């Protein structure tokens, strides 16, 4: 389980994260919601150990993240961000192999190669194995990056222990086809025992795919709930500065949100 205990983060005069305490749900799809500038990305960086908290502690399975070395940490959690461009051409399989870097010293083992093949299989990019990464479309590139982070925290690894996948607005450059594909792939990881922690900006997708919701407002946790119906129009209207209305899909009976300028 990943926990934040009264975490603060200051950058110069700016107080970006102001005392957040929370526990992400193990083996669930955790979603962080909030408007631009609420401190979502900073919070995620603190949780991944890429940033060090000014105050408070980030705990991985009862161990402070500071006490875990960068190498061991890289075998327990992986981070997928928005869009990764490469300055140089590399074949897809080399990019995915980078996910195995924390696991071998110089030369990848057969086990590492098998994982690469399976990760590419999961994202349906096996046919692109030897294609140059830079020639792929944005959606295909993001699938390759997903395969890379999957390979990094691959479940059938000899390594035991909980695995965490962090997603920092992973779908913001994707069309709806790739967006759904990526969210489905992330959800499928839960069955294999992985915990997913994602920042998503599309509130409807977030509520549809998430199990637990953490709403950030100005560096503080405005709401934490496992029940999507507990998220009220008032909260969304205040936090996102819009007008919000819950509607029901006539055919499926599912609810969704409609937003108008506030």
């Amino acid at each position, binding site marked *: 389980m990943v926990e934040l205990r009264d975490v603060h983060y200051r950058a110069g005069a700016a107080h970006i994260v102001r005392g957040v305490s929370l526990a992400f749900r193990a083996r669930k799809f955790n979603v962080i919601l909030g408007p631009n500038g609420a401190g979502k990305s900073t919070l995620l*960086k603190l949780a*991944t150990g*890429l940033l060090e908290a000014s105050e408070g502690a980030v705990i991985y399975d009862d161990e402070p993240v500071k006490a875990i070395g*960068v*190498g061991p*940490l*890289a*075998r327990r*959690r*992986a*981070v997928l*961000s928005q869009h*990764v*461009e*490469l*300055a*140089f*051409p*590399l074949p897809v*399989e*080399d*990019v995915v*192999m*980078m*996910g195995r*870097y*924390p696991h071998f*010293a*110089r*030369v*990848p083992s057969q086990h590492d*190669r098998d994982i690469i093949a399976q990760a590419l299989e999961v994202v349906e990019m096996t046919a692109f194995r030897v294609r140059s990464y830079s020639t792929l479309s944005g959606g295909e590139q993001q699938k390759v990056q997903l395969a890379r982070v999957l390979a*990094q925290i691959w479940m059938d690894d000899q390594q035991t222990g909980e695995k965490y996948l962090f997603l920092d607005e992973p779908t913001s450059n994707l069309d709806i086809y790739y967006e759904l594909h990526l969210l489905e792939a992330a959800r499928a990881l839960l069955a294999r025992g992985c915990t997913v922690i994602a920042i998503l900006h599309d509130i409807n997708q977030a509520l549809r795919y998430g199990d637990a919701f953490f709403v950030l407002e100005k560096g503080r946790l405005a709401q934490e709930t496992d029940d999507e119906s507990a998220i009220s129009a008032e909260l969304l209207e205040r936090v996102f500065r819009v007008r919000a209305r819950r509607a029901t899909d006539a055919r499926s009976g599912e609810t969704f949100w409609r937003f108008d300028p506030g």
Partner: protein
Amino acid sequence: MPERRGYGRIYLLLTVLLAASVLASAALGAFRFTPAEMFRYLLQAIGISEPAATDALARNVFLHLRLPRVIVAGLTGAVLGVSGTLMQGVFRNPIVEPGLAGTSAGAAFGAALVFVLGERTTLAFTQPLGTLAVPLFAFIGSFLATMLVYRASASFGKVNVFTLLLAGIAVNAVCTAGTGFLSYIARDPQARNITFWNLGTFTTANWRGTIVIAVVFAISFAALSRHGKSLNALMLGEDEAASLGIDPSALILRLIIINTAMVAVDTAMVGVIAFIGLVVPHILRMLWSSDYTFLIPASALAGAFLMEVIDVIARFVISPAELPIGIITAVIGAPVFLWILLRQQRAGSVVVDG
């Protein structure tokens, strides 16, 4: 996945090319040596066979002029090739090389300081301390210049190519002006030496310098063997590299120090040779792969090979005189540089995300 794609065969090919070029470079020039002669002199040098009195002149030319020159040329090519690879990795851009980022010019300025001003102090080149002072000052100048260019062009994990080029121009201008000033106030034989040395030359190669360059290169190269993977990961960007368990700022600092040490010690001896660091990794990327675990060893081999070839050309173009090495590398390298820059611009990726 090194073995499967057969980097081994490429290394073998490059090694064969390098061996052939070393042999040619050792044999050709104002004095020509047959393989049999070279073999005989080598045996005589290590005391296996008796030196024959009739060989004395040719043997001395071979052992004390030609051989160190061939080795220094090869080492210089290897240093500059690897340096280009490293710097392109650190700056995440294919146009960077020691000549562009101030590394060479900074080293030249540092070394020239000792050459000219050291004469009035205990640092004089002829003094024991001076031998150490030249590479040391070259390293300091080189490190400061490189760090300045890096700091100016990189912010928030991204490298801006325009700032990089401008900072490179500015730092190079200051260092070149400094070296120019020193050669102006120097007395004549020294001044001419600096001018010639500023264009790159292997004529001054001697055994002592050769050993220093070889040792520094060997240590640097050994220290690099772990970093191929890290440089690959850095291609993804600093945050991504960090989440793969690499500390990007520590990595970059370590690579700049290793790179500067190699280039500074070499530059102190042979002067400024531009564009090798640009051309070598570029050819390797085009022909084979951008994987740094491959590029680091391959650019050492290919750089050494290319430099031997260029050194042979330098001996013949205006024979019996010799052309400075830097002139040839500029003629070959500048068009390649422009070509890469134009291609990058067309691809719309002159500003590269880190």
